[in-house]
């Protein structure tokens, strides 16, 4: 088992990350994480984390730290234990005195470990307050963070209004010693790893954070050359509607193109995540999401990322492979190698999810499951036939025949049977299965529709009562998620290339001054265009003609 270090850069990335860590169900471990956000974005959490607040500040020679041993960051052991037993503890039953989730968490902290749960205030109130009041990602985080984990970018006029383009972000990274400090934090966590398998990197694609991330990635490539980076470029729903006026639309479109091109050339595998309207997409068929709430949409993306990352954290078994709990372990390197390193070398993949995944009992069940896997990546083509597609699927907690959790062979057989009849099938597909479903912890938002049962099963008739169901009604759900390297991503790439050309590259383009103000010369822009068109050609050799026009 090998360590993963996670990096979260940007507000939305941290929203997703916060949900992600909540799933891991850990109390006395701190994640191997470096999070970067605005100054003041931590809400009521201290940037020194929560664990070290009560250290006596007197002049004692020995400072004692509560329950932290040297191996404290060995998070995966804990998670995998949960995965294996299929019995993830849900900490939803813990005392939350006030309905402000975090405050109650803070207050109860010293006694919580020892005392019996004493629910004075019903969980219902807490859920309600979370639904209405979440403002910062820390508002619903129940995880302890290491003092080195949370980094706040500082500087003048740092809010999302102003911090809205690539150039500003890049400057912020190099201003003062901020970049160096961030790198230093990462080094701190990597130094602890005996054998790091990769870096999981979530970044806000919009706003200046992509500039920060690009600089960060560059220094990672420099310093940790052989550590593979799996990059999720996430986009909040609000970022799609923010543009008003022509000038800003151009700025946003150019930013998207520039940022995608830079980020993709700096990572081994990039996964664009974030739909303009999750609530109206097919991916939320059984969900009930309010797009304006980051707290809602980020939960879906976090669930998908959690599922995708399960194979990284499973114990690798002997050559015989299978155990009764799960199989299909892969490390970050292997996933990247499989999706991006094979013949086609396409670095952009699509993230699909079925949340909750339907059960596999019944004849058409597997087909139904495959059909339910819907993209969380924007601007993808539907029903694109691609004979060279490669995919990695992670399914966990899905029910098989007779209502028990489906084993690896069961899932594999039924999926194979289904794809035999399918019109399009990938060239290569990796499957990883565990029996443990996705736990729904208390701070999880109420986003399930009324067709979702207590264990995530899909009901034939709607539940009575409220329209949306949350952590109190749903204990866990089966999940299926997939990374797909396919030419279905072409529209995404083509749009970015077109925007780059239209607003930045063409003679007299409206945004050429803008890009120059971000610090890019003409030939750098040309290079970016080159990067994008190369990606397109990789997937669609026929498009060669159009990209060689200049």
């Amino acid at each position, binding site marked *: 088992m090998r360590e993963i270090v996670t990096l979260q850069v940007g507000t939305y990335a941290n929203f997703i990350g916060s949900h992600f860590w909540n799933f891991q169900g850990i109390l006395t471990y701190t994640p191997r994480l470096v999070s970067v956000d605005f*100054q*003041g974005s*931590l*809400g*009521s*959490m*201290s*940037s*020194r984390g929560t664990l070290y607040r009560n*250290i006596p*500040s*007197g*002049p004692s*020679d*020995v*400072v*004692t*730290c509560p329950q*932290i*041993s*040297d191996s*404290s960051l060995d998070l995966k052991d804990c998670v995998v234990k949960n995965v294996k037993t299929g019995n993830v503890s849900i900490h939803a039953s813990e005392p939350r005195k006030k309905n402000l989730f975090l405050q109650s968490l803070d207050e109860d902290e010293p006694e919580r470990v020892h005392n019996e749960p004493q629910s004075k205030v019903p969980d219902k109130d807490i859920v309600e307050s979370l639904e209405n009041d979440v403002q910062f990602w820390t508002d619903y985080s129940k995880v302890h963070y290491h003092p080195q984990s949370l980094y706040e970018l*500082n*500087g*003048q*006029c*740092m809010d999302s*209004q102003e911090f809205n383009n690539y150039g500003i972000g890049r400057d912020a990274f190099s201003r*003062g010693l901020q970049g160096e400090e961030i790198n*230093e934090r990462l*080094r*701190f966590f*990597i*130094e602890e*790893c*005996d*054998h*790091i398998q990769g870096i999981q990197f979530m970044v806000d694609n919009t706003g200046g954070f992509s500039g920060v991330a690009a600089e960060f990635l560059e220094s990672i490539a420099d*310093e940790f050359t*052989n550590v*593979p980076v799996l990059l999720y470029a996430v986009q909040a729903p609000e970022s799609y509607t923010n543009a*008003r*006026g022509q*000038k*800003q639309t151009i700025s946003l479109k150019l930013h998207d193109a520039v940022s995608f091109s830079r980020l993709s050339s700096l990572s*081994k595998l990039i996964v664009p995540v974030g739909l303009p309207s999750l609530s109206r997409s097919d991916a939320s068929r059984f969900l009930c999401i309010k797009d304006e709430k980051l707290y809602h949409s980020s939960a879906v993306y976090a669930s998908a990322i959690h599922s995708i990352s399960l194979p990284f954290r499973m114990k690798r078994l002997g*050559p015989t492979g299978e155990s009764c709990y799960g199989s299909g372990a892969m490390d970050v*390197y292997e996933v*990247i*190698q499989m999706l*991006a*390193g094979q013949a086609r*070398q396409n670095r952009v993949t699509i993230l699909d999810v079925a949340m909750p995944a339907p059960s596999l009992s019944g004849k058409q069940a597997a087909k139904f499951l495959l059909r339910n896997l819907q993209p969380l990546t924007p601007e993808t083509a539907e029903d694109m036939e691609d004979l060279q597609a490669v995919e990695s699927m992670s399914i966990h907690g899905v029910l098989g025949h007779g209502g028990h959790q489906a084993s690896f062979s069961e899932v594999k057989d039924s999926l194979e049977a289904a794809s035999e009849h399918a019109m399009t099938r990938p060239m290569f597909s990796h499957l990883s299965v565990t029996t443990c479903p996705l736990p729904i912890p208390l701070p999880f938002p109420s986003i399930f529709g009324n067709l979702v049962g207590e264990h995530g099963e899909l009901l034939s008739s709607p539940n009575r009562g409220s329209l949306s169901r949350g952590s109190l009604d749903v204990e866990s759900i089966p999940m299926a998620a997939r990374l797909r390297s396919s030419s279905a991503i072409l529209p995404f790439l083509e749009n970015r290339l077109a925007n780059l050309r239209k607003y930045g590259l063409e003679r007299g383009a409206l945004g050429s001054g803008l890009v120059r103000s971000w610090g890019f010369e003409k030939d750098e822009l040309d290079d970016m265009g080159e990067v994008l068109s190369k990606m397109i050609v990789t997937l669609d050799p026929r498009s060669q003609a159009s990209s060689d026009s200049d």
Partner: protein
Amino acid sequence: MSIRVLNPNAEVLNKSAALHMNINAAKGLQDVLKSNLGPKGTIKMLVGGAGDIKLTKDGNTLLKEMQIQNPTAIMIARTAVAQDDISGDGTTSTVIFIGELMKQSERYIDEGMHPRVLVDGFEIAKRATLQFLEKFKTPVVMGDQPDREILKMVARTTLRTKLYEALADQLTDIVTNAVLCIRKPEEAIDLFMVEIMHMRHKFDVDTRLVEGLVLDHGSRHPDMKRRAENCYILTCNVSLEYEKSEINAGFFYSNAAQREAMVAAERRSVDERVKKIIDLKNKVCVGGDKNFVVINQKGIDPPSLDLLARAGIVALRRAKRRNMERLVLACGGEAVNSVDDLTPNCLGWAGLVYEHVLGEEKYTFVENVKNPHSCTILIKGPNDHTIAQIKDAIRDGLRAVKNTVEDESVVLGAGAFEVAARQHLINEVKKTVKGRAQLGVEAFADALLVVPKTLAENSGLDTQDVIIALTGEHDKGNIVGLNQHSGDPIDPQMEGIFDNYSVKRQIINSGPVIASQLLLVDEVIRAGRNMRKPN
């Protein structure tokens, strides 16, 4: 208004309203920072969203932490922060000087004077003041053995404005020695070669200078020594962990046996690298009293650590990139990028290497080195805000010493320069100027007095008395500054109060530029601003 025709959504402030917005913003910012100036200045307490406390007097820190909204204030703050980036100090002075220039101008503008005339006067006064500064500065000869006393005095002047006296005096020696340690003849001083490390441990007065290096991590093997004397130090950047070959290498195996074979082969090549290091150790460490320490920038995995531990080697992995440079400067030898070029000449030397454990944090001290050109300032303090405060102060102290070495001159402090320059402007320069620009010169001259005035104010003295006493002495030909305890004039030279020449020059240079620009603003247009906000 024409702009309304062009863009009906634009918010517009015109003429006097625009000017007054600028003046008020400058005065507002001045008000915030002015109480922090000088050794008697008060402290600001910043409380974060989570109740985190930060105590500071440092203008630079304040400006970075405060979330300033007003566009004019942001402009001034940026100038001040740039001041800090360039010369390392003088942030507060810049802000209050700009504020004062605006305040003095306001008087004249209210009487109907055109800003352009004032600005012309500023320009003349600025040039004259800079010329005066050249005459006024005290040259210091650096040569091979810099005058330690004068460096200490400059450092003390800076540090006393940031910290309480006893601590400031202690740090004075530390920062002076640190800069002298890393200084190399004929080369620019690279302050990065001073590592600043902090421990939440003991008291602030336990802060000390380590001639050598302190690393914030320890060895990762239980059998490695926690304390070793007479150590050879190998500084290297060699991966000692099993890693997959480069992605895209396109190497595939078709069965489990092949995979095993490949893994074994790669493991072997790592082991060989480790063996080469062990061979070198065995070559140099004959006899029992020598030790061998490997400090690697890349990773070392557990099997390699095991091999090294069995050979009696202490090994640290993933050292900071900068520490590679610092180690070589501190211990000698050279940084090695490949085990193929290992020779005994690559090795550095340290008399003592030991590990200090503090809670779950480990520190490794590399000390007793010969002829170090890099050192570590180890800050100690009982809590985070003390440490942060000391850190900011040390940073400024280091810059002050560095500036002195590079400027080869200092300027008399305690307000002496400002009073002298003001008298020079009023008595000499003003007469040579024709017309109303004279008033600009006068405004500039009076604005200079803001420094002694604020110093007096912060010490609880009467500003008028102090200014009259000081200008009186200057007119008699005595160069005096302000004694903050009694309010009497003193000779800064005798008291050892010196400021940096480059800091002063920078303030005189940048203050009037920004003030002039703000004064010449006749319209503030916030186009697009209200279009972005959806209300």
